[in-house]
C-alpha cells in the first residue's frame, strides 16, 4: 500500500504534464494550420539563404 504514496502522485503528475503540454501547444498555435504542417515538410531548405 505504501507504493500508492508514490504511484498516485506520479500518475497525476504525468497527466498534468500532458495537459500542460497540450495547453502550451494550443497557445503557441500548433493546431492552427494542420494542412500546412503536412505540406511544409515537403519544402526544401535553401542553402543560399542564411
Amino acid at each position, binding site marked *: 500500500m505504501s507504493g500508492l504514496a508514490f504511484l498516485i502522485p506520479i500518475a497525476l503528475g504525468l497527466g498534468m504534464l500532458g*495537459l500542460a503540454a497540450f495547453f502550451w501547444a494550443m497557445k503557441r498555435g500548433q493546431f492552427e494550420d*494542420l494542412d*500546412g504542417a503536412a*505540406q511544409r515538410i515537403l519544402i*526544401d*531548405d*535553401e542553402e543560399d539563404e542564411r
Partner: protein
Amino acid sequence: MNAPLALDTQGSMPLRDSRFTVPGMRCAGCISKIERGLAKLEGVDAARVNFSAKRVAVRHHDRLGEDDLIEAIAAIGFEAQPVADNPMARDDRESAALMRALAVAGFGMMNIMLLSVSVWSGAEGVTRDLFHWLSAMIALPVVAYAGRPFFASAAMALRHRRTNMDVPISIGVLLATGLSLYETIAGTGHAYFDSAVMLLFFLLAGRALDATMRNRTRAGIGALLSRMGRSAMVLDESGAHRTVAAEDLERGMLMIVAAGEALAADGVIEEGETTLDNAMLTGESAPQAARVGDTVYAGAINLGNAVRVRVTEAASDTALAGIARLMDEAGQSRSHYVRIADRASRLYAPAVHSLALLAFAGWMIAGAGWYQSLVIAIAVLIITCPCAMGLAVPAAQVVASGALARNGLLVKDGSALERLAEIDTALFDKTGTLTVGEPVPALGHLTDRQAAIALALARTSRHPLSKSITRALEGRGVQPVDLSGVQETGGNGVSAVFGGIAVALTRPDTDGFRIATGLRIGDEVTNIAFDDPVRHDAQATLDELAAAGIESAVVSGDRAGPVSAVAGDLGLEWKAELHPDAKLAHIEKLKSARHRPLMVGDGINDGPALAAAHASIAPGSASDVSQQAADAVFLGRSLRPVVLAVRVARRTMRIVRQNFTFAIVYNVFAVPLALAGLVTPLIAAVAMSLSSLVVVGNSLRLARAAQ
C-alpha cells in the same frame, strides 16, 4: 526552414500586422514561394502562411501599405485580398475553449477512472476513502472548468424559460458531483465522480467535433470571400489624397478608383471612362463600359482606367447593402428551423426530468429514504442522457461534411445538411449555375498565325474576355508571338505591333447579339464569338436528381430566348426575366404549397431566393453575397456536387435516425435498470462508453458516402 521567416531587423519603425487571403495556394511550393518572396521585401519583418485558412499574415513596417504587399504577392504570382481584422477570431476562440475543456475533462476522466477501477476491484476502508477524496479533488475543478459550456447554455435557456439538451446534462452532472461530495465527506462508500466527468468528456467530444466542422468550412469559404471594396482613395478640396474605410465614406466625397480596384460605394462617374466588371452584382461576366455621368455600384471592379467617382450612396445605403437587407429578412424564416437534436430534446428533456422525479418520488413512497431515492434519481438522469445522444448528430454530420469537402462541396453547418436532406424541388439559376458562367471563345476558325497573335495580345490584358482567350489558347499549346508597343485602352482593347503590322484585340466589326471580340491584323478583322456553355455534367446531374424524386426547374433573370434554349436542351421547366423579388415570390409560393425548395444560384439577384429557400447551394464563382446566403458552396466546373449534397445529406439523416434509434433502444434497457436501482457506477460507465463507440462507428460509415 520550417520556422516562421523572421528577418531580425531591429528597426525603430513601428511594426504592423496585416492579413491577406490567398485563395490560389495549393501546394508546399506556394507556401515557400510566398513566405520567402515576402520576406525578401524591404520592410517586411516576417511572413507566415496559414495553409488551412489560405491566408498569409505579414508583420511589416508602417510605411509599407497593404497595396504594396498585395502588389508584391501578385509579383510572386498569387492574387491576394486584404482581410478585415480577423473576423474568425470569435469562432476560433469558441472552438479553442471547447478543445481546452475537452482536454481537461479527458485528464480528469482518466485519473478518476484509474482510482474508480481500484475501488470496484475491492479497495476497502481507508484506501477507498482516500481514493474518493482524491477523486473529489480532481473532479471538482474539472467539472467546474469543463462543464462551463453546458452550464452557460443551460442557464441561458432557463433564463428564457426554455429547456434544451444542456439542462438535464447540467442538472445530472451537478447533482452527481454534489451527492458524491456529500458521500465522500460522510464516508458512506459510494461516489459517482467518474460518471459525471465521463459524461462531460463524451459530450464535449461531440461539441468539439461540431465546432471543428463549422470552422473548417468557414475557413474554406472565407478564402473565397474577398471582393467587396473595403476602402477608397478620397480626394478632398485641397487636393490631398487619403484612404477612407468603406463604412466611413459619405455622400458627396470624390473617390479615385484605380484600375483593378473594387468600388467601395455607389456613385456617379465625374471624370474618366472605363469598363467595369459587375459580376459581383449581376453574375454577368461581360464587362460593361462606363462613362462620365454613369451610375456605378459598390462591388463593381474597375478593369480599365482610373476614374473619379462622386459618392451618391455609401455604407449601408448602397444597392448592395439593400439587397443584403432583403436577404437578411428572407433568411429570417430559416432561422426558425428547429434542428433535429433540439426537436428530440423538446420531447426528451421533459420526459427525462419527469422520469427522474418519478423515480425519486416512487422510492420515497416505497420508504427508501431520501438519500437512496436521490441516488436512483441521479442514476436515471445520467443514464437517460447518454453520450450516444450527444454524439448522435454531430458525429454523423462531421463525417458527412468531411466526405463532401473532399468532393468539392463545403457545407456551412449541420443544420444545412438536415435541410438539404428534406428538399423535394430544385430551382436553378441559368448563368453561372447551369452554365459555367465564364465566356468560352469559339476559336476553331483561327489560323495558327492568328491564334499566336491573339494569344500574345490577350495575355497582356486582365479583361475577362482576354483572360478566357488566353486560357483557351494556352490549353491548346499555342505559342505566342513577340509583340512590341503593347497598349491597352479602356473600352477599346489591346493593340500592338507585330512585324511592322498593327494588330489589336478590339470591338468586333458587327454589333451582334452575342458577346464577341475582333482580332485585327493589319486591315483584316476576324471575329471571335463567345459562348457560355452548359456545365458538362449538368444533364447527368439533373437526371440523378429526378431519380432521387426531386423536380428541377430553371428560374432566371435572363431573357426568355437564351433561357428557353438551355432549359429545352436539359428538358426542364423554365421561368425567365424574373427580378430578385419575383424569384423570392416564386420560392415563397412553392413553400406555401408545402414544397421544400432547393435554390442553386450564383448572382446577387439570386441572393434573396437563396436566403429564403429551404436549402441553398452556390457555386464557388458566385458573388460573395450569394456565398454568404447559401448553405453550401461547391467548387470547380462540375455540377455533380449538387446531387451529391442531396444524396449524402439524406444518407446522413438516415444514419442520424439510426443513431437516435440506438440511443432510444439503449434507454429502454437502461432506464428500467436505473429505476430499479440496479445501476452501479461500473455498469453506467461501461454502457456509456459502449453506446458512444457504437454511435461513432455507425457514423464513420458515412466517410465513403460521397463516392
